C-alpha cells in the first residue's frame, strides 16, 4: 500500500450502511405512490410458438382491470435490445422462450389481476424447438428470428501464427471438450419498477435498475419521447451481478407504456418464479480445446472452438463472446493460436451479462487443460504455468504487447502457492489413478468392487487456477465516466457519478477517492441519488469498470476543485509562487509555512470570493483498437491478474465436494477500500464455488425446472469454509492512483481451481460443470423428466 494515502486503502464503512442496517433504505418495491396501479404479465407455457390470437373478452370489462396493454399500445419501437433490436416489449407474432410476455393487465389489485390473467385465452401453435446450441446452426434448423437469416448471433475469431504448423512442431497434443451450465444471477431482490406519468414532462421511473442510462435510452425509444422526458431514478439495488440490465430496461419500458396509457403510476414487481423465468442468465458454453506442447511444457499451439448458447435473444452475447475470444487462451504467451467463438440463438432462456462476462467458462476449460498438460508431462501445475505465463512485454493472443502496467501474473501465483503451501500438498494428495468407481447404469446395484473403505471415503485435494482480465469495456465501445462534485461553504461535499451503486460499494469507493484528494473524511461527503437528469451519461455499470473509470472521474473532479482552492490559499495567505499547498485531515498546509488554515475556512473564503466550487469531473479511457476481421488488436488498455488455490474434501461415496479453503490472491491495482475489496473477494469466490459445485438451470422442452431457491441452490453460510483474500497492488497509471478492477476477477477462476482440486483428490478429470454429487459419482447429470412445480403454471 502507498504510505502517503490518508484514507485510500483503509477499511471504510459503507456510505449507505446506516440506511441499509436499519431497514430505512428504500428498494424499488418499497416505493408507493398515490393512485398506484400494478401490472401483471400474460405468458404461455411454451418455448416456441406462433401466436394466432389473444382473446380478452372474458375479462376486458372486469372492473378490476384499468387497462390491457399489448404490443399495439407501444407508441415507439416494438422490439429492443442492448446490441440488436430483436426482443419484443410484448410479443404479438410468436414467443421464442417461456419468459416472453404477450400482454399485461393493469389494475389496483395485483392478486385479482393474477387470477384474471389466467382467463385470457391465447390461441397458439407450437413450433419446433431448438434447445441444443450445437444443433442451432444445422441446415434444417428452424430459424428463431427469421429476419436474422440464421441462428448465428455472432462469430468472433482470433488468429496468431499458424496452429497447424504449431501442432506439427509439438511433442504432445491434447484435445478435450468442456461444458458449463446456464447460471442464474440470483440477486436476492427480485425485479421491481414503478413508472410515474408526468404529463408534458414525460415519465419518471424508479426501479431496481443496474444501468439507468441504458434504461432511459430504451424507455425513450419505446414510448417515443426524447431522452430529457424520461427520468430514471435508481432505487437502492438489491444485487445485480450484471443481471438487472436488459430485463429492467424492458420492465421499465412496459411500466412506462402502462403509466402513460392509464395515466397513473404503475408498478411491476416480480415474484422469484417470474424473475428466474424471464431474466437472462450466464451463457452455457461448449468448448473444444486442442493444445500442442513441447517436452518442457512450452505451449506451441492452441486451437479453440467455442459455442455459446445465446438463448432466445442476442442481448449482450456479441460482447460477452468477444471477451471470451480475446481471453480464451488464458494468461499465457502462445505463438500459434486460432480461436473461434460463435454465439447462437436457441429457445432456451436468453443469456447476457453476468459477473465474469464470458470469462468463467473459458477459464474453467483452459485452466483444467493446463493441469492436464502438467500431469501428462509429470510436472507441477505451478511449473506449467510459469513456463507459459504472460510477463511484462509479452504479446497476447490478439497481438497486444503488455506494457505500461505491472504484469503481475507470476507474482500472484507465487504469493498464492506460498500462502497455501501448494506444492507440498499437491504432491501429497496426488492420485495416480481414479478413485471413483465406474458406475454400471444397467445394473444399478452397488457391487463389491465399489466398496470404499471408511477411511478412504473422504479424499483431500488442492488445485489452483490463474487468470488475467482486460479492464473495463475495451474495444466494445465508448468508455467514459463523469462525476459531479460540489463543495459547500462549510467544507461538506456533494458527490454524484453517472455510474450506479449495485451493492458493490461504489459510492463508498468514490467518497474515499474524493476525500483523499480533498484531504477530508469520507463521512463529509454526501452521495446524491442516482438520477439520469442530474449527471452525464457515464455508460453502464459493468465490466468491473466503476472504480477504474468512475474513480478516475471523481479524482479529476476533486483535483479541479482542490486546484481552485489552492490558488485562493496562495493568494489570500500570500504564499510564494513555488510554495506547495496540500490538504490533509481537514487542514490546509503550506510546505514553507506549515499549517495555514482549516479546510472549512478556505471553503468559506472561496464562497465569499465568488469562486465556483462545483464541477463535473471526466475520465476517458486511453484508446484501444480492434480489427474484427483479423481478430487482432490492443483489446483492453490495462489488465488485472489473479490466482486462486482451492482446497477441497471429496466424499467419493456420496460425491459431495466440500470447499475447505480458497486462497484468493488478486492484483486489482491500488486498493481503495480494504473492507469493500475483501467483501468482493468473499462474495465472488462464493459465487464461483456455487458455479463449480451445484448451480445450474436446466430445462425440459425449453421450460425451466428450477424456478425458485428450493431447486436453484446457491451457496449458504454452511457451504464454504475459509476464504483468504490477499492483495498484490501492482502499479498502473490509469484511473484513481492506479485502482483497477476486482469484482469479476474474484469469481472467474474459482470453479477452475476447485475442479483442479477435485482432480487432485480423486485422480479423475471432470469436464462438465457443475461438479455436483451425480457428476462425481456417476459421471453424468440427473434431471427430473417433468416440470411440475412453482407458482407459475
Amino acid at each position, binding site marked *: 500500500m502507498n504510505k502517503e494515502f490518508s484514507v485510500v486503502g483503509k*477499511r471504510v*464503512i*459503507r456510505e*449507505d*450502511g*446506516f*440506511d*441499509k*442496517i*436499519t*431497514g*430505512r*433504505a*428504500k*428498494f424499488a*418495491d*418499497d416505493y408507493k405512490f398515490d393512485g398506484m396501479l400494478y401490472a401483471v404479465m400474460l405468458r404461455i407455457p411454451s418455448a416456441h410458438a406462433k401466436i394466432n390470437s389473444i382473446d380478452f373478452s372474458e375479462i376486458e370489462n372486469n372492473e378490476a382491470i384499468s387497462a390491457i396493454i399489448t404490443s399495439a399500445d407501444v407508441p415507439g419501437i416494438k422490439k429492443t435490445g442492448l446490441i440488436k433490436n430483436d426482443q419484443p416489449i410484448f410479443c404479438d407474432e410468436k414467443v421464442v422462450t417461456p419468459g416472453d410476455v404477450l400482454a399485461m393487465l393493469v389494475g389496483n389489485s395485483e392478486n385479482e389481476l393474477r387470477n384474471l390473467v389466467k382467463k385470457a385465452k391465447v390461441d397458439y401453435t407450437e413450433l419446433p424447438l431448438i434447445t441444443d446450441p450445437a444443433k442451432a446452426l444445422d441446415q434444417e434448423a428452424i430459424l428463431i428470428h427469421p429476419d436474422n437469416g440464421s441462428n448465428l448471433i455472432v462469430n468472433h475469431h482470433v488468429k496468431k501464427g499458424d496452429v497447424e504448423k504449431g501442432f506439427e512442431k509439438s511433442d504432445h497434443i491434447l484435445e478435450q471438450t468442456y461444458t458449463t451450465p446456464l447460471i442464474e*444471477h*440470483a*440477486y*436476492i*431482490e*427480485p425485479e421491481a419498477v414503478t413508472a410515474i406519468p408526468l404529463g408534458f414532462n414525460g415519465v419518471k421511473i424508479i426501479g431496481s435498475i443496474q444501468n439507468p442510462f441504458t434504461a432511459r435510452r430504451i424507455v425513450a425509444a419505446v414510448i417515443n419521447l426524447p431522452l430529457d422526458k424520461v427520468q430514471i431514478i435508481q432505487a*437502492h*439495488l*438489491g*444485487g*445485480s*451481478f450484471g443481471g438487472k440490465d436488459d430485463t429492467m430496461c424492458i420492465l421499465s419500458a412496459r411500466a412506462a407504456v402502462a403509466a402513460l396509457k392509464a395515466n397513473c403510476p404503475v408498478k411491476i414487481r416480480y*415474484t*422469484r418464479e417470474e424473475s428466474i423465468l424471464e431474466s437472462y442468465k450466464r451463457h452455457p458454453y461448449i468448448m473444444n480445446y486442442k493444445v500442442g506442447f513441447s517436452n518442457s511444457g512450452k505451449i506451441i499451439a492452441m486451437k479453440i472452438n467455442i459455442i455459446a448458447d445465446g438463448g432466445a435473444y442476442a442481448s449482450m452475447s456479441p460482447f460477452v463472446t468477444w471477451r471470451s475470444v480475446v481471453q480464451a487462451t488464458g494468461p499465457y504467451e502462445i505463438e500459434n493460436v486460432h480461436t473461434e467463438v460463435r454465439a447462437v440463438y436457441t429457445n432456451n432462456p436468453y443469456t447476457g451479462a453476468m459477473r465474469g462476462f464470458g470469462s468463467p467458462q473459458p477459464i474453467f476449460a483452459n485452466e483444467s487443460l493446463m493441469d492436464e498438460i502438467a500431469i501428462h508431462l509429470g510436472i507441477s501445475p505451478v511449473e506449467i504455468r510459469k513456463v507459459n505465463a504472460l510477463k511484462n512485454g509479452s504479446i497476447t493472443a490478439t497481438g497486444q504487447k503488455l506494457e505500461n502496467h505491472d504484469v503481475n501474473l507470476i507474482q500472484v501465483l507465487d504469493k498464492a502457492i506460498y500462502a497455501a503451501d501448494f506444492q507440498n500438498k499437491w504432491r501429497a494428495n496426488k492420485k495416480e489413478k481414479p478413485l471413483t468407481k465406474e458406475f454400471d447404469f444397467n445394473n444399478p446395484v452397488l457391487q463389491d468392487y465399489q466398496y470404499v473403505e471408511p477411511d478412504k471415503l473422504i479424499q483431500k485435494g488442492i488445485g489452483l487456477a490463474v487468470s488475467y482480465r482486460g479492464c473495463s469495456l475495451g474495444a466494445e465501445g465508448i468508455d467514459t465516466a463523469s462525476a459531479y462534485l460540489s463543495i459547500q461553504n462549510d467544507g461538506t461535499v456533494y458527490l454524484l457519478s453517472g455510474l450506479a451503486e*449495485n*451493492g*458493490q*460499494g461504489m459510492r463508498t469507493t468514490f467518497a474515499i477517492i474524493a476525500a483523499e484528494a480533498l484531504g477530508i473524511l469520507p463521512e463529509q461527503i454526501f452521495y446524491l441519488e442516482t438520477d439520469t437528469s442530474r449527471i452525464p451519461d457515464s455508460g453502464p455499470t459493468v465490466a468491473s469498470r466503476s472504480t477504474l473509470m468512475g474513480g478516475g472521474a471523481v479524482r479529476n473532479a476533486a483535483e479541479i476543485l482542490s486546484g481552485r482552492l489552492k490558488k485562493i490559499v496562495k493568494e489570500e495567505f500570500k504564499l510564494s509562487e513555488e510554495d506547495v499547498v496540500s490538504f490533509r485531515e481537514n487542514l490546509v498546509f503550506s510546505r514553507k509555512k506549515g499549517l495555514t488554515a482549516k479546510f472549512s475556512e478556505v471553503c468559506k473564503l472561496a464562497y465569499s470570493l465568488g469562486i465556483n466550487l462545483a464541477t463535473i469531473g471526466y475520465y476517458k479511457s486511453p484508446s484501444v483498437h480492434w480489427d474484427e476481421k483479423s481478430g487482432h488488436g490492443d483489446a483492453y488498455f490495462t489488465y488485472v491478474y489473479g490466482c486462486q488455490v482451492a482446497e477441497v474434501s471429496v466424499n467419493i461415496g456420496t460425491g459431495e465436494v466440500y470447499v475447505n479453503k480458497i486462497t484468493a490472491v488478486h492484483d486489482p491495482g491500488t486498493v481503495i477500500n480494504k*473492507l*469493500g475489496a*475483501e*467483501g468482493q*473477494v*468473499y*462474495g*465472488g*469466490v*462464493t*459465487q464461483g464455488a456455487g458455479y463449480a459445485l451445484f448451480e445450474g438451470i436446466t430445462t425440459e422442452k425449453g421450460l425451466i425446472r428450477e424456478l*425458485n*431457491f*428450493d431447486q436453484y441452490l*446457491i*451457496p*449458504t*453460510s*454452511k457451504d*464454504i469454509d475459509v*476464504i483468504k483474500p490477499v492483495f498484490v497492488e501492482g502499479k498502473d497509471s490509469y484511473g484513481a492512483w492506479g485502482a483497477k478492477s476486482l469484482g469479476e476477477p474474484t469469481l472467474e477462476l474459482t470453479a477452475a481451481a476447485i475442479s483442479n482440486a477435485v482432480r487432485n483428490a480423486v485422480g479423475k478429470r471432470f469436464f462438465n460443470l457443475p461438479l455436483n454429487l451425480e457428476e462425481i459419482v456417476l459421471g453424468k447429470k440427473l434431471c427430473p423428466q417433468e416440470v411440475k412445480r412453482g*407458482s407459475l403454471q
Partner: protein
Amino acid sequence: MITLKFILNGKEVSITTEPHIRLLDLLRDKFDLTGTKEGCGVGECGACTVLMNGRAVNSCLALAAQVEGYEIVTIEGISNGDVLSPLQKNFLLHGAVQCGFCTPGMVLSAAALLDQTPNPTEEEIKDAIAGNLCRCTGYKQIVDAIKETAKELQVK
C-alpha cells in the same frame, strides 16, 4: 375482516385486516414497515425474517392472523432510534452489508441466535443464518460481525 392485537416493535398495536394475508404483507402494506423484504415467497431465502416471541421466522410463511397476542420485532425495532444495536454496528464495521437486501433478515436471525445462545460457536452462527441467503458477501463478514457482537456482549 379480523382484528388483531399484538406487540409490534415494543408497542401494542391493533389492526383490522383481511384474514388471508401473510404476516409479510401485514408488516409491509398495513404498517409500512418496508425493512422486511420478500425475496422468494416460499421460505427459502430468509429476507422476510422477523422475530415472533424472540424466534426468527419467515414472515412469508406466517399468516397475519397468527400474530394475535405475539410480540413481533422487525428490523425497524432493532435499533433505538438512531442508535444502532451492537449487532448492527458490527455488521457495518465488518463489512457485512453489501446490497443490503438480505441484511434485515440476517440481522434478525442473528439477534434470535444471540438471545438464545449468547456465546455461539462458529458452527452455531453458520447454522443460525443458514436459512438466510446472501448473494453478495459470501457470509464471512456476517459471521465475523455476529462473533464479535457475541464477544462484546459477553464482556458486558
